[in-house]
């Protein structure tokens, strides 16, 4: 045995080092995944080189399809799906979405459901806990439970899920996309109808949630209800058909809440949780949308034209995925959201529609009085009621499961118990049927079918612009608007009394709408949906009306309009706020702009046509001047009220951006300020309250802000005004969802600002704006056009990852080719074809 000992030692030594090597290769190294599986030929990084690729001709079989599906992909990667049934078409769309955008779909459903921890580990647990509290998955489950099992929309969703899972079965675990290789993940959870409904809820949440109640509550505490009513009026000046009111008649009723410290502690905790989970908007996250339809009386063809450009954050992979679906029951083309089997904005054979967000107030916060004797009880409407507790289990990759208890009152989930107990009520928390609405809109061929479909569209409330081949144009602001027992719900309310409870929702018959107006056009740009005498309170967070103002200018003057005219209007960069204010502001500085730089700047503004084109220096000067003038009007009041600002002094600390539009920042609505500048030069708010011995006037602020703007531009961009071109300092930013530099795109100069129809954030990086531009000619629906700043593929190695960005930047569109059968597609635009056949599974 002694003779064998050296041999044994050598053997165990080599075995030991072999095992150590394998273990080291199996362990992730910091942010990098484990090198063993990453670099292994099969299942490793390498197969990702084929992500996003299609062969010229493919033939596949699946048990999940009943008949043959033919898919023709055009030169932009847009699939034209020809199927013998709606469910086969939905299957094919699910399969294509998964093939092109799997990681995006997975991330989206996990963000919505609060299951990111399963993918990325303990770092995401707090975010997941917040999203579990919000309860989008529970809302999706409620919707699922309430849907009729024979609902064709549900059948389409089942088929879609089967298509996604068919793809997963074929590729997992070795050929998952690059994102999974980098995360070291080798399996993707099966796709379900619940995932689709949860994602639909996520979109609803994204477009209708608002934490502004917390801001208004704090404002009311710090400034008083009267001042808040003055500065944030329900009826704003210049809102058609609104007449200016000063001071306003309405009052914000004080919330009557317990002490400030407790309240501020609760608000701070809630804001912190929402911000951490990425659910708080920030200045610069610019949003807004336009849509309009003109009747045949104003078009060259004698038939309506519809235009739609929803403004959302730019991202890669793109939010949208264009698709054309043809079955015996439908022929629909437009943009889909990956994760859902429906066209969201598009057209059928005879109708077209586009969406803008209503921005209605459908989310309230309530303080709850917890029973000091029993913490699972709260006082509501005269009695103690039980808090419903839900045990949410969060699976954590590389860690133990986390149990998170969600507490729910009659109002909704409790989001904080720091200082005070605050619950959130949101119109989307229960069962809602947007999926059914979209399914039916995708099948609608006339006005009555369209309106019948909208009855089911509840959250997020949307302004649906409509046009059809019969000559109708319309807008319906369809949605689920709460009716409150009392109050307006724009500040945190005492939930114990029951006096601020929601008692129901605005009946569908009463939602704001307009059909075939005499003007010959309808339009929306997130402005107030209904006039002041509308019998229901819908909200107050409308976008400034400048985009709407410009669109109305163009449409009201338009005759013989064409598709090209509508494209020009979508790309229009005229800032109507500048048009309204510069005639007032420029005379004030004309005598004081004496040095050459100020004189050059003044000359540029005097010669300006108010268009924020990429070559305009005046646009750069105006945007900076506007920003400083607004800030100097309001910042002193906010500082005096005790708000803290960031180091630069342009944003409130810890508040993100209030409102649906990131450009709202913390300040009162632009129209109110415009009215003060134009018609109330002696408004007390122009006085700087931090200089008690001195009474500043509007003109003092105009002069001082002009000087500061010119100086800051010279500091930033140099003393030569030629270097101040808008396009030099206002560039496109399309970031990847993972925000990895090499995957991001952009850098091209882009025209437009937040007050022009071609809406863009006004900061140096424009990360949000027209996420899809579409113009549909109801006179010849087959020659309609669309484009979005991205591409069909989610793979950075795919040919269609970003191929539409250049077109979008140049203001070009792609034809929305609309054949009713595959043979009608011009061969020159075909990139590839796929046949999916039924596989008997034998």
């Amino acid at each position, binding site marked *: 045995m002694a003779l064998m000992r050296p041999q044994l030692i050598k053997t165990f030594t080599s075995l030991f080092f072999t095992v150590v*090597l394998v273990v080291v*290769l199996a362990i992730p190294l910091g942010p990098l995944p484990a090198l063993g599986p990453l670099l292994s030929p099969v299942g490793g990084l*390498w197969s990702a080189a084929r992500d996003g690729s299609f062969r010229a001709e493919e033939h596949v079989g699946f048990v999940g399809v009943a008949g043959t599906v033919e898919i023709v992909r055009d030169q932009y990667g847009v699939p034209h799906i020809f199927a013998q049934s709606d469910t086969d078409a939905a299957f094919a769309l699910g399969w294509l979405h998964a093939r092109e955008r799997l990681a995006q779909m997975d991330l989206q459903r996990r963000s919505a459901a609060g299951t990111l921890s399963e993918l990325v580990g303990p770092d995401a647990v707090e975010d997941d806990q917040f999203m579990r509290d919000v309860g989008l998955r529970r809302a999706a489950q409620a919707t699922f439970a309430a849907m009729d099992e024979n609902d064709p929309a549900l059948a389409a969703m089942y088929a879609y899920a089967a298509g996604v899972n068919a793809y997963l079965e074929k590729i997992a675990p070795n050929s998952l996309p690059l994102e999974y290789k980098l995360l070291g993940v080798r399996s993707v959870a099966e796709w379900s109808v619940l995932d689709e409904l949860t994602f639909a809820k996520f979109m609803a949440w994204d477009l209708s949630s608002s934490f502004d109640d917390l801001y208004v509550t704090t404002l009311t505490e710090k400034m008083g209800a009267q001042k808040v009513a003055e500065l944030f009026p329900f009826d704003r000046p210049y809102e058609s058909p609104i007449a200016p009111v000063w001071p306003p008649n309405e009052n914000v009723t004080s919330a009557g809440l317990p002490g400030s410290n407790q309240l501020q502690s609760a608000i701070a905790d809630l804001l912190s949780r929402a911000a951490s989970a990425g659910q708080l908007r920030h200045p610069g996250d610019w949003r807004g949308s336009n849509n309009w339809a003109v009747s045949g009386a104003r078009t060259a063809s004698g038939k309506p034209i519809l235009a739609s450009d929803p403004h959302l954050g730019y991202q890669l992979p793109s939010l949208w995925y264009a698709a054309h679906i043809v079955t015996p029951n439908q022929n629909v083309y437009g943009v889909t959201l990956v994760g859902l089997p429906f066209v969201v904005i598009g057209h059928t054979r005879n109708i077209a529609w586009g969406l803008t967000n209503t921005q209605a107030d459908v989310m309230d916060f309530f303080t709850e009085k917890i029973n000091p004797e029993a913490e699972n009880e709260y006082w509501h409407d005269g009695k103690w009621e039980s808090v419903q507790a839900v045990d949410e289990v969060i699976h954590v990759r590389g860690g133990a499961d986390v149990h998170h208890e969600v507490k729910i009152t009659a109002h909704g989930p409790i989001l904080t118990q720091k200082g005070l107990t605050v619950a959130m009520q949101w119109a989307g928390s229960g069962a809602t049927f947007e999926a059914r609405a979209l399914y039916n809109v995708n099948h609608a061929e006339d006005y009555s079918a369209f309106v019948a479909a909208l009855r089911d569209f509840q959250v997020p409330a949307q302004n649906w612009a409509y046009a059809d081949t019969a000559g109708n144009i319309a807008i319906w602001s369809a949605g689920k608007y709460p009716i409150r027992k009392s109050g307006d719900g724009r500040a945190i309310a005492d939930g114990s009394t029951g006096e601020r409870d929601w008692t129901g929702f605005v009946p569908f018959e009463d939602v704001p709408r307009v059909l075939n107006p005499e003007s010959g056009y309808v339009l929306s740009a997130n402005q107030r949906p209904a006039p002041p005498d509308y019998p229901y309170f819908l909200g107050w967070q409308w976008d400034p009306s400048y985009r709407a103002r410009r669109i109305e200018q163009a449409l009201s003057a338009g005759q013989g309009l064409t598709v090209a005219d509508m494209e020009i209007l979508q790309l229009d960069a005229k800032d109507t706020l500048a048009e309204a204010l510069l005639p007032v502001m420029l005379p004030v500085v004309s005598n004081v702009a004496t040095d050459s730089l100020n004189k050059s700047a003044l000359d540029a503004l005097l010669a300006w046509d108010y268009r924020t084109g990429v070559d305009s220096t005046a646009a750069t000067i105006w945007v900076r001047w506007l920003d400083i003038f607004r800030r100097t009007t309001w910042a002193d009041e906010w500082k005096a009220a005790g708000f803290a600002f960031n180091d630069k002094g342009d944003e409130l600390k810890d508040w993100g951006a209030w409102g649906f539009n990131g450009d709202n920042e913390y300040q009162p609505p632009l129209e109110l300020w415009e009215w003060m500048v134009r018609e109330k030069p002696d408004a007390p708010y122009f006085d700087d309250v931090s200089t008690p011995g001195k009474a500043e006037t509007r003109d003092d602020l105009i002069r001082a802000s002009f000087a500061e703007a010119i100086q800051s531009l010279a500091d930033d961009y140099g003393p030569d005004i030629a270097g101040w071109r808008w396009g030099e300092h206002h560039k496109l930013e399309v970031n990847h969802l993972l925000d990895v530099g*090499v995957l991001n795109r952009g850098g091209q100069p882009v025209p437009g600002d937040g007050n022009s129809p071609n809406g863009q954030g006004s900061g140096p990086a424009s990360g949000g704006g027209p996420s899809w531009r579409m113009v549909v000619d109801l006179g010849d629906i087959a020659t309609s056009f669309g484009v979005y700043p991205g591409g069909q593929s989610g793979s950075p190695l795919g040919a269609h990852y970003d191929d539409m960005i250049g077109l979008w930047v140049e203001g070009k569109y792609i034809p929305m080719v609309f054949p009713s059968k595959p043979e009608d597609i011009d061969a020159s635009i075909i990139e590839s074809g796929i046949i999916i056949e039924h596989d008997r599974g034998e």
Partner: protein
Amino acid sequence: MMKNFLIGVAVTLVAAFAFELAGVWWAMPIAGAIGGYWVRKGGQGFLAGALGVTMVWGAYLALFAAISPLGELLRLFAGIVELGDALAFLPVVLALVIAFLMGGLGGVTGAMIAGVQGELGKR
């Protein structure tokens, strides 16, 4: 002697190919061990295992390079992990080094096991 070495390499090749096909990267030392067991000498066992596994991984990577835009992928990966274009080839080198080490260590272990078995046989 040479014959045993070549057979050891071939045996490793076959085993590594089979394991890789099954997606079991951590079994590469076992493939090497099988080859090393055949060779029975530590140094040669290391070399047989290392060469066998490295050749299989290398062949796979060559195949990927032939049928897909591997260069683009490598540049993309280098960008993501902030290596820079100049070092984009690093994952390939790293993969081959890992294959070499796994196969080699497996090979020497296999040879040692064969040695122990031989000793036991003599007794």
